[in-house]
């Protein structure tokens, strides 16, 4: 939205073309093959990358770096703020077979849909040599993008290990500890998180809530469980799964006791609230730290990162896939292979806060030792690495994203419209039924 896209044109890449051919050969198998394409045709190829939200490749300077290594490649990114709108239009383009980019970002809530329903429309990356990359990635991340018959649909960009981001200045004013370890000790489990919230509320001004919306908390709690909205046979179980029920109960405690700022995530009002300080804590997957920095701006040291109640969990993390309609599948594969290589994933974490989906990268000492002055030098890397190491291997389903959105709306109904929790729950289940059945 308001985020400035400061990026100079790819013109520089062209200037250095001849000299860079040699250096391109030195890196990896894949990039040497694409260099060969250059020498074969010498043609300029434009790769279009369709993304949503903030993937951060551009901001981390990775496109520029890649275009320097591959002078014949020009990368054009086209990005949509909201994932829901992005995915809807992607599906429409896929069924029409036109309007597709060479590379398409896929959110984790949609990856099962891609495996189960859209596998015929994306390139099997094994055919381009992806099989050799398997050991790089977290097994859960890799298997989520693999179809039942072994096709690999996409490569993982980042992972969503969980923590809680909190406002140190607001905590201090409310007489709570402000250092990461002290804050983590406040909430070994979700009940104590709610209790701390009540303590905070007693001391804080009326316009400062404990958390932005219970919808975020709900997602985090569901993300701590292996069984979420589907069982392993592919049956939708949102209504009977005790893990979902438990997440709902905690969310309802927050909502009905006035502990939330009643915001909807990813709306302009929510973005503004990061700076104005209308909430003190937020369930914070690794990628959210990058989001906070870009929204909250000049608040260095006012934020901290603490452990999530329950210690581990996963929310989000995306994939890159290549539609069969792409005319440059080989070049597109070289690019996504490079973007998701351990080296680039390390850069993405230290510069954008996107935690590696590559376990090779995650085990690198530079990850665990990473801190960020913006977050008051909280042990970011250590907290997220510990969370990522024990994430349960979740069972994903085709409509996970839709179900997640439906529950977020159900929670806002209770928070902002005062609907009774039971009525909102019943309505959510009937909405899910309507959306998942033909």
């Amino acid at each position, binding site marked *: 939205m308001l985020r400035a896209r400061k990026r100079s044109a790819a013109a520089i890449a062209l200037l250095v073309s001849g000299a860079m051919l040699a250096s391109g050969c030195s890196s990896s198998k894949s990039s040497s093959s694409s260099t060969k394409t250059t020498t074969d045709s010498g043609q300029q190829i434009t790769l279009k990358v369709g993304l949503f939200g903030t993937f951060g490749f551009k901001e981390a300077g990775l496109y520029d770096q890649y275009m320097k290594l591959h002078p014949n490649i020009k990368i054009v990114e086209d990005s949509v703020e909201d994932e829901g709108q992005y995915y809807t239009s992607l*599906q429409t383009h896929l069924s029409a077979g036109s309007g597709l980019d060479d590379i398409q970002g896929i959110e984790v809530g949609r990856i099962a849909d891609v495996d189960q329903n859209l596998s015929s429309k994306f390139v099997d990356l094994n055919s381009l040599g992806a099989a050799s990359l398997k050991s790089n990635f977290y097994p859960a991340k890799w298997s989520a993008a693999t179809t039942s018959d072994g096709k690999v649909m996409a490569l993982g960009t980042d992972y969503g290990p969980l923590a809680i981001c909190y406002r140190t200045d607001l905590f201090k004013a409310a007489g709570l500890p402000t250092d990461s370890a002290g804050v983590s000790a406040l909430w070994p489990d979700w009940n104590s998180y709610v209790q701390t919230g009540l303590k905070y509320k007693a001391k804080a001004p009326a316009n400062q809530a404990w958390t932005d919306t219970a919808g975020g908390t709900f997602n985090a709690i569901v993300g701590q469980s292996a069984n979420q909205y589907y069982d392993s046979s592919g049956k939708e179980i949102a209504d009977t799964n005790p893990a979902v029920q438990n997440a709902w109960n905690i969310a309802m405690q927050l909502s009905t006791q006035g502990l939330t700022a009643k915001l*909807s*995530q990813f709306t*302009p009002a929510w973005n*503004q609230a990061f700076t104005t300080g*209308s909430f003190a804590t937020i369930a914070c997957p690794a990628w959210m730290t990058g989001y906070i920095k870009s929204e909250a701006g000049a608040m260095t040291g006012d934020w901290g990162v603490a452990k999530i109640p329950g210690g581990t969990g996963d929310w989000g993390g995306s994939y890159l896939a290549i539609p069969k309609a792409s005319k440059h599948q080989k070049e597109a594969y070289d690019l996504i292979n490079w973007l998701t290589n351990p080296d680039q994933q390390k850069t993405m974490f230290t510069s954008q806060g996107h935690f590696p989906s590559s376990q090779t990268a995650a085990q690198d000492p530079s990850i665990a030792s990473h801190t960020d002055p913006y977050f008051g030098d909280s042990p970011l890397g250590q907290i997220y690495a510990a969370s990522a190491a024990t994430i349960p291997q979740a069972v994903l389903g085709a409509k996970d994203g839709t179900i997640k959105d439906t529950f977020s709306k159900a929670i*806002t109904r209770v928070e902002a419209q005062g609907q009774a929790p039971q009525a909102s729950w019943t309505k959510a289940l009937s909405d899910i039924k309507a959306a998942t059945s*033909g």
Partner: protein
Amino acid sequence: MAVATTESPLEKALPPPGGRSWRSRRARWDLKFSPYAFVSPFFVLFAAFGLYPLIWTAWTSLHKVELENPDQSTWVGLKNYTDLLSDHNFWNAFRNTFQMGVLSTVPQLMMALGLAHLLNYKLRGRTFWRVAVLSPFATSVAAATLVFAQLFGRDYGFINWVLHFAGIHAIDFQNGTWSAQIAISVIVTWRWTGYNALIYLAAMQSIPAEQYESAAMDGANRWQQFRHVTVPGLRPTIVFTIVVSTIGASQLFGEPLLFSGGGSNPEMGGVSRQYQTLSMYFYERGFTDQHLGRAAAIAWAMFLMIVLFVLINTLLARRTRSAK
């Protein structure tokens, strides 16, 4: 179709007489077929972009079709339609569309009439006022809605800031039912009032000045002139604007879609669908949930409703005219 009639039997019936030149034959063909050629673009375009989608949608509405695989469809008969009857989201959308239609159309047309009456006076800088009145209509839906969504914001919106001086507590416009519907109606009214005002103004200027003069001579003041000369003179125009506004209102989409200002699934029209219109519900079923068959049934139901509304409007208009 016009194209089909071009294979005229006359052509075969008239053997080309040897003496007739190619030129005169061509002139005859020209006379006979050119009119069809001239009107054919409309029919061809209508067939491609009007008739074909209409029929295709009707066919789809009788099948179970998913957007991901539009080639595979299963015949389900009228099930999509009978499902709609018991679908409370559909009736919710129907009610919202109707409510917002009334909330926006009625004040909009009344204000337009008043504005047109004012513009009809001899004013200094008349052209300026006319352009000013029309300028909201030239604004894009997206731009207008996004600005209004900011104005109606709960925490940092201008309107709540003003209300706060009046001692009124911040209203959560987006999350309320009536507050959201009124806010959206304000956007629609803001955009369309000037457009209707100019239509009324044009019609007002065709009312003979003598009527006003004689009314003035009979001692009618401005208000009485407006009621007894202007409004009766405008009746056909008013009926026209009501019909057009009704069609517009039943297809309301852009304003409510963008009113949430972002977030997931804007087509749901708020967390409890408190401002979801029929078009948005159609979009949700078709493109978010991917159920093309069910979406097509909604589209056809909407089409039939619009036809019904226009019929009722016309009947009412005819009745009032004959009652006069």
